[in-house]
């Protein structure tokens, strides 16, 4: 991408106060440059090949399986271990110690010695140690209901009840997908020059995509074990409809707070892509595809099952909003740009607005997809030489109003404290003054630190050099580096006081999950959400550049005709 077009785009981007507001981040949806989308395009364009390399499962489905991934440049293996666990051992939280499935994505070949090492360590997850040719370490639990229903029906030669599938949307649900050096595996730096996985989180996304194929192969295998020749494979439309679930808790929030440059880069790249799209004049040939996408989104929201009453209401409002919007599409004319439509749509709910943005980005792949390559960034937080106290004050007043205008002497603005528990270092929230652990509070209070920095700066002569100020007040250097660096980036920091009594960490989780490409948001509490990945994505043997956005359950009369073919015939 050339710098001039990028700079020009930057001048028309939306205000960071709008884009980085927590409630809007908490309404984000997948778009074309979400990581799962980028991965699928790359796999299709470069014709990556995946094959079953080893299948060493017992008749009950326990043992190990290895898939081989061959790219243009190298070979990788996904090594999956299937374990027999009791129902009461199945726990999605980080404090769990056993899982139905544990797996690792390995660079290169898997020798017998390496397999033995993985066998001894991968099932232990955090308690194991792995070599640095392991790129991804992860685990997943079954949706017991879907798993049992599928195996039982397919074994009997029948297709499943589609409603059972729709309520869940996956067979396996990941509960942690580790990369970047965790527990001895490869640092991300090692992948910087690996053209297959140089984009951050792409190795993790690939491991999850391969696991989706395993989840299908696994139920087919067990159905055949139980039903023999009578068994059938799952209808391909339904296979495509099933993704991989994911349970994400509070632990993801500290990542977003501790990696502000990465979050800025993700959001700035999306915003740059969006700005490019919105500058196009509305043309008649784009109206119909837009309407189709919006209708698909309405169906998707209709089918999302969530126990969260707020999310139910958001989805219902968004459906109504999108129906209204569809009714107005005919009034659009070629003198308008898409930006005009977005401006007219600001009265819609945030869910509705965000869905519209994702749909609009879908209409211009040739303009949007180039931005997928600028999702990585340098994370250095630094202060330049020669700056004065007044220079930093100016940045805080222009970019950190959300922090400096908050009165941190009020209890409600300091309500929570964040800490790590001795229990597997799980990040948790405690109520200040009521719960133990406040003395070990994590410094995730970006808003409060910025407020205190601002107050100290105001009490210093404006023309004092910043370096001199920090010699006298070294406790502020860390937040000063952050505020200066992020204050000069396009989108900057997330504008959220995470200590506030009403702060919803789930907004942070939703933002990251949407950037990854999650769908079907099902909050289980204010700190915990279930989603699906790759739901509606092409299957491995049909991988193609065509895309999906909002997965919807195939209608019974459109299901393809593979359902009655027995496994023996395939």
């Amino acid at each position, binding site marked *: 991408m050339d710098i001039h077009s990028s700079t020009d785009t930057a001048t028309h981007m939306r205000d960071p106060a709008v884009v980085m507001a927590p409630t809007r981040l908490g309404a984000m949806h997948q778009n074309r440059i979400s990581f799962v989308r980028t991965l699928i395009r790359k796999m299709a364009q470069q014709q990556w090949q995946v094959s079953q390399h080893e299948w060493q499962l017992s008749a009950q489905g326990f043992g190990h399986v290895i898939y081989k991934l061959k790219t243009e440049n190298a070979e990788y293996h996904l090594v999956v271990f299937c374990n027999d666990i009791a129902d009461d051992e199945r726990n999605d939280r980080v404090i769990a110690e056993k899982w139905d499935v544990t797996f690792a994505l390995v660079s290169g070949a898997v020798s017998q010695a390496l397999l033995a090492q993985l066998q001894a360590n991968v099932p232990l997850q955090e308690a194991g140690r792995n070599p640095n040719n392991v790129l991804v370490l992860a685990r997943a639990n079954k949706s017991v209901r879907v798993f049992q229903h599928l195996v039982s029906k397919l074994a009997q030669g029948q297709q499943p009840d589609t409603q059972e599938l729709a309520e869940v949307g996956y067979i396996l649900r990941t509960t942690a997908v580790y990369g*970047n050096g965790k527990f001895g595996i490869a640092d991300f730096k090692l992948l910087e020059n690996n053209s297959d996985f140089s984009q951050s989180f792409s190795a993790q996304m690939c491991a999850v995509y391969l696991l989706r194929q395993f989840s299908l192969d696994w139920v087919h295998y067990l159905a055949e074990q139980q039903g023999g020749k009578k068994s059938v494979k799952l209808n391909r439309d339904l296979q495509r409809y099933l993704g991989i679930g994911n349970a994400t808790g509070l632990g993801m929030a500290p990542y977003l707070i501790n990696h502000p440059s990465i979050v800025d880069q993700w959001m700035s790249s999306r915003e740059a892509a969006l700005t490019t799209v919105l500058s196009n004049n509305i043309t008649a040939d784009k109206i119909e595809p837009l309407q189709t996408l919006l209708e698909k989104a309405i169906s998707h929201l209709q089918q999302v099952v969530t126990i969260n009453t707020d999310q139910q209401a958001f989805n219902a409002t968004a459906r109504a909003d999108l129906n209204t919007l569809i009714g107005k599409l005919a009034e659009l004319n070629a003198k308008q740009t898409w930006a005009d439509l977005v401006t007219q749509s600001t009265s819609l709910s945030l869910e509705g607005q965000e869905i519209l943005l994702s749909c609009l980005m879908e209409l211009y792949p040739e303009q949007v997809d180039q931005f997928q390559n600028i999702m990585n960034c340098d994370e250095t937080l630094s202060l330049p030489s020669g700056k004065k106290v007044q220079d930093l004050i100016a940045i805080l007043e222009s970019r950190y109003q959300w922090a400096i205008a908050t009165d941190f002497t009020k209890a409600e603005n300091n309500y929570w404290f964040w800490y790590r528990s001795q229990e597997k270092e799980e990040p948790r929230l405690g109520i200040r003054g009521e*719960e133990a652990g406040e003395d070990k509070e994590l410094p995730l209070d970006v808003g409060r630190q910025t407020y205190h920095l601002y107050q100290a700066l105001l009490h210093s002569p404006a023309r004092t050099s910043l370096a001199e100020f920090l*010699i006298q007040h070294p406790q502020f250097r860390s937040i000063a580096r952050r505020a200066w660096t992020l204050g000069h980036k396009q989108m900057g920091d997330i504008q959220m006081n995470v200590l506030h009594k009403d702060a919803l960490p789930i907004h942070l989780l939703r933002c990251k999950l949407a950037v990854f490409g999650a769908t079907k948001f099902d909050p289980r509490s204010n700190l915990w959400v279930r989603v699906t990945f790759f739901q509606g994505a092409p299957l491995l043997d049909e991988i193609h550049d065509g895309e999906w956005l909002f997965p919807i359950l195939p209608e019974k009369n459109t299901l393809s005709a593979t359902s009655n073919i027995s496994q023996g015939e395939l």
Partner: protein
Amino acid sequence: MIVSHNELMAITNKAFLGMHRTCGEADEIASMVVNLQMVGLNGIRHFNKATQFLTQEKDCPVSISQASVGVLNVDLHGCSLACHLPVIIDYAIEKMVGKKKLIIKLQHCHNRWLAYSELVKLANKGIACKAQWNNGTAPKRTLYILNRGQITPEIFLSNDMSNSAPSSDHDMTIELSLKDFNVNALSSDYETHIDSSDLNNAQDMAWNKGIDVDDAEWAILKNTATAILVENSEQSQQGAGGLV
């Protein structure tokens, strides 16, 4: 054992945060430790040594005075260099504007090996750097020279104090210059040379194969990092959102 860069960064970060010091930045200190460890110069051991004293040291700003043109005296009041060097270097670079060289005389400080990576950053900014200090135990004299654009320094060690100018065992002198230092002339009375290429190779190896750490030192660091953890309780378990 072998650990990853990210693991060592994260655990050092936690270990320092657990000490709840006002001065010192956890991410900067973690970088100091990791970068020193990656070139094979025992970053973890130096940090573990520092942690024995950090919580008992003063936790206050340094005092800086200009001794003469081009010379800064910095009193660290007995604190660890790790907690203050980044802020001192920022200040020194501003004071160097318009000058060809600047001498920073650090007094009453500890953990001078941890200066390693902050000084490496200077070379990337086009500033050559020479640092030297004396120690009560071997090696008694250390000289660190990093000329402009180099990735790793030349390090010289000696136990011979006969040619050494009198200096406290808790001081360190850093000289910044826009011109490169004459390595041969400055190092002639040092017995041991750690070649920059050896450090460079060690660093490459650490990136590619993982970072080699001493098991006992790693265990100490891990234990230090537990100070930030809060005891588990029934109430605490609800603080992660629970399961529905």
